[in-house]
């Protein structure tokens, strides 16, 4: 196992597994000391993602020291992030637009009522809710992601049955010295 020493709350040090660097907006925001909204804006354009990549690569040596870090992987993650951020912005604008508001309001009202006769919809949304609480900081595949993704691979005739099975355990995050995240901020002066 590839490990790195991390400071502990009691002042000691402990060998912990070297985690992959995950390019979520929060991780990049913390690492580069940028506002999250600024990171989200940059992620939406090719030029913006390139700027983030260049800024992160200025700290390649440090990143390689504390993370399982690969520049090509970072570039790919930024592409995935950019696609998701752009699509989400378009979706949220669309479903709240004045032209669609009435229609979408009826759709959402219908969805809210699903819990009564389609409990699996509620389970699905709640699973995303809980998984989202973890994913902000370390979007490594975890068991609930695998469960959700598995639904997309299931034959339609089985999906309702499968979705009613209890979602898997969400493990508590490992203790961290100063927060529930795995990214060590840059040492002073390197931001």
């Amino acid at each position: 196992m590839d490990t790195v020493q991390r400071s502990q709350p009691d002042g000691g040090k402990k060998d912990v597994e070297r985690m992959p660097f995950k390019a979520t907006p929060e991780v990049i925001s913390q690492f580069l000391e940028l506002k999250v909204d600024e990171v989200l804006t940059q992620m939406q354009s090719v030029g913006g993602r390139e700027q983030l990549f260049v800024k992160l690569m200025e700290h390649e040596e440090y990143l390689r020291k504390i993370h399982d870090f690969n520049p090509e992987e970072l570039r790919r993650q930024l592409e995935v992030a950019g696609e998701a951020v752009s699509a989400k912005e378009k979706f949220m604008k669309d479903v709240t637009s004045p032209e669609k508001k009435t229609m979408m309001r009826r759709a959402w009202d219908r969805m809210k009522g699903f819990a009564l006769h389609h409990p699996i919809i509620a389970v699905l949304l709640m699973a995303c809710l809980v998984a989202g609480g973890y994913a902000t900081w370390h979007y490594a595949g975890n068991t609930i992601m695998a469960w959700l993704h598995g639904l997309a691979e299931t034959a339609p005739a089985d999906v309702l049955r499968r979705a009613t099975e209890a979602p898997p355990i969400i493990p508590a995050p490992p203790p961290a010295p100063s927060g529930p995240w795995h990214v060590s901020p840059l040492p002073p002066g390197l931001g």
Partner: protein
Amino acid sequence: MNTLFLTAEEQKVFQALPAKLREGWTVEEEKGQFQDAEEKLSMRMALLRLHDPKLLAVQKRAVGLSSGQLAELLAQTDLKGVADDDLAELTFAVGPSILSKLIEGLLLQAKTDAELEDIVALALIRHSLLQSYISV
């Protein structure tokens, strides 16, 4: 709201429903496509931004629960009163691929107009999701 946005495959399932059930419903072809992946799903989760204090409290309480306790927590939480924006956030996180599986699964079991109305709502939301990925 009586238009169903259905893929070619889903339209076949719809056409196999009893004629009386299909009566009064209009079908439009859903042409949007999206190839999901666990990494993309994970990134959508990382982008989740909720505001409802009830939902945020569920997120905090869910940490470290066993599957039985989680199931109990989820059963105690309902979506009534949740703002549309938060519901939109959760739906974006789910993504169009899982919604597609649900739509087809629900179509296979549809027996009433009320159930088709549910599918109309899901399909409309999925349509918006798929449109959002075009020319991204």
